[in-house]
């Protein structure tokens, strides 16, 4: 393991974006580990600009993290009594959650806090704007949900970090690599090319399943053998690798009206050998891959 694959390097990469959204491919993919590693990296590097963190409420698991002086957090007021750093209350957002209204606090000392941000993605944009414009946060990290729903409504410009681990493929590394690579392929679905004015674009609002794709092929609306489909965002694509290959072979081209900006994969290598797993993963995908568990 070397430093260029570490949380420090991932943090450095994410400094190019205003907002980083952590998305888990499965449970125990290490999303909170990534969040903590990024906060530690930011503190250790001693950057003067403030960092802000929040989460998308996911009912049940509330990530706990550690903040350092000057950092901001947006969390439900019900999480404040057990936050153990000296804190300044900055703003009440008007966003209600089952744990109370989401408050924006600034840490004046270091300590832990549980993050339970807005449960609805639609309220996230306003909160992110507040953190950026009113708190002056230069980097915002959002601990997203552990499923696909998170993609919608996170605003343009958010860099997505796909947090992935062995998941259910714990016995066969190659299967885990393929699964993550497939998720990566779907998340990299591009925006539709502009000015495609010949009407051969099929817009889909709901899920793109194999049945839906079949129906579109049967309708025989094509443009010289190419069938163009636009889904609202990559989270709506429910196709396994084999089906996707076959559909592409038959001329199907999938686009996302709200594409995801996939910036990196944060890998939790457990239980595989880290070096080997990371190495295979880097061969399988074109985005940077980081190991944030075994810091370089």
């Amino acid at each position, binding site marked *: 393991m070397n430093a260029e694959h570490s949380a420090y390097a991932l943090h450095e990469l994410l400094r190019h974006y205003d907002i980083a959204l952590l998305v888990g491919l499965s449970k125990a993919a290490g999303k909170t580990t990534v969040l903590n590693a990024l906060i530690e990296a930011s503190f250790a590097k001693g950057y003067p600009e403030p960092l802000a963190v929040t989460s998308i409420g996911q009912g049940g698991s509330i990530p706990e993290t550690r903040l350092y002086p000057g950092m901001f957090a947006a969390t439900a*007021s019900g999480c*404040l*009594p057990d936050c*153990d750093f*000296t*804190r*300044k*209350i*900055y*703003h*009440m957002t008007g966003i209600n959650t089952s744990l109370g209204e989401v*408050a924006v606090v*600034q840490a*004046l*000392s*270091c*300590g832990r806090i549980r993050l339970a941000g807005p449960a609805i993605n639609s309220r996230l944009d306003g909160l992110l704007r507040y953190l950026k414009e009113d708190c002056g946060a230069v980097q915002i990290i959002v601990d997203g949900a552990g499923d696909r729903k998170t993609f919608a409504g996170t605003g343009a410009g958010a860099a997505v970090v796909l947090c992935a681990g062995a998941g259910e493929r714990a016995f066969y590394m190659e299967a885990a690599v393929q699964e993550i690579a497939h998720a990566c392929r779907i998340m990299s679905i591009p925006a539709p090319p502009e000015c495609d004015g010949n009407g051969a674009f099929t817009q889909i609002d709901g899920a793109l399943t194999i049945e839906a794709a079949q129906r579109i092929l049967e309708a025989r609306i094509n443009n010289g053998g190419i069938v163009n489909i636009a889904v609202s965002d990559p989270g709506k694509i429910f196709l396994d690798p084999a089906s996707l290959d076959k559909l592409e072979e038959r001329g199907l081209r999938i686009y996302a009206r709200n594409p995801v900006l996939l910036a990196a994969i944060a890998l939790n290598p457990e239980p595989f050998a880290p070096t080997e797993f990371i190495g295979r993963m880097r061969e399988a995908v074109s985005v940077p891959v980081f190991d944030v568990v075994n810091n370089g």
Partner: protein
Amino acid sequence: MVNLNYQQKKTIGAAYVLDKLNPSTPYGRELVRGLAPFRRGEEGLLERELRNAAQAAVLKKDNAGTFYNLLHTLSKFRDIRGSLNKLKPPLRVLSDVELFEVKGFLISLNELIPVYNECNGAAGFTGIGFIDMTKALDILDPDKSGLRSFYVSELYSEKLRDIRREKKDIEARLNAAADGPERVSLTLERMRAAAAEDAEELNIRERLTELLAEHKESFFMNIAAIARLDFTLAKAELAVAYNCVMPVIAHNSIVIEEMYSPEADDALKARGRSMMPVSIALSPGVCILTGANMGGKSVALKTLALNAYLFQCGLLVFAKSAALPLFDAMDFIMGDESSVWTGLSSFGAEIAALNGILERAGGFSLIILDEPAKGTNPEEGRAVAAALAKRLNGLKSISVIATHYDNVATTDYRRYATAGLKKDKVAAAERLTPELIPELMDYRLVEVTQNQATAQAVPRDALTICKLLGLDAGVIELIEGELGF
């Protein structure tokens, strides 16, 4: 006391108007939700309320920038009554979030007062005043930063400063410590420091709560003033949007020129037309309203009820000019008395409602009956309507009865008729279609004078209306046969 239920407010179009009131604060919104009409005898208070709304409307028209500045300042207030209730005995300690909210309120108040005073110089509101609470704000802003953020500052206690200094020192050592016994003991030390910090913060919050409690009356008085100002501005916005007028408070009579109902007018405007305003003058006793089907009797009655009710609630009136009195009660029978729940037929429900009205009739009421007893046979129905008119005419209340029955509108009563179909236009029309009705109909109310020979007869327009609505030609022929044409 005037008390309309939601169904009645909906029927007369008051629910529509009240929905359009859009206060900026939770306090103003609550005032609108619990809107209480003034009582007879409170004319002075009503006058002040109406005058404030009229002044605010002038401010909006002449000085929109100042008006919106005031609205913007108001919009920053959040509902902190949950926190303030903790200041009442038994005192409960405010959390840091609650102290933040209270501080935010006091900062907003400090912003509002100068803006209000500036507006008030121009507008001249009466009975809305704010109490300066800078002293209360000083409690929550020990370094006088003027910022909205709040934390339990070390400025409150030397002890807190020492605890935090120590905690910080432990944290620095902890960050540098390697895993092992040193780390374990430092972690324990940090926990103790954090607990001591919590305990001292609680002491301070308790002290702050006690200090704030000394100002609790001022908090609640300012909230009441915010609610009233907010409500006044909301009324003014509505009044400007709909060209409302400041009514004159009359003793016991009604004179309204060109009144209209926003709900009816907006619905018509969506179809490219507008409501024809109606005028009416009423005094104690009974007024009988007659007129053709679809001639606008019901709309006129609802519009009258609407404006009388809104006036009683302190709103400006939807009319060109208006003089209205305060009533002890308002009773409307407009054909929508629900009979499902009482197990009575529509006729039965109506009679039950009439009984209620007569029981309340001791005071000064506004009674509006739209076609009483229309659901029974014409002979007895006419008798019921005539008897009601006779009975209500003996009261000091103002009653308006719309009817199709002949010989109810005797010269004993003040009488109005809807102007009805324009005969010449009907004759000139090539084909009669429902779309033509609004063009052929004159919806205005005309007072019927004593010497008009046909005064007691109601108009005979039903057949023409049937033709306009495109009733089956065979049936029309049969009707004409029945009428001996």
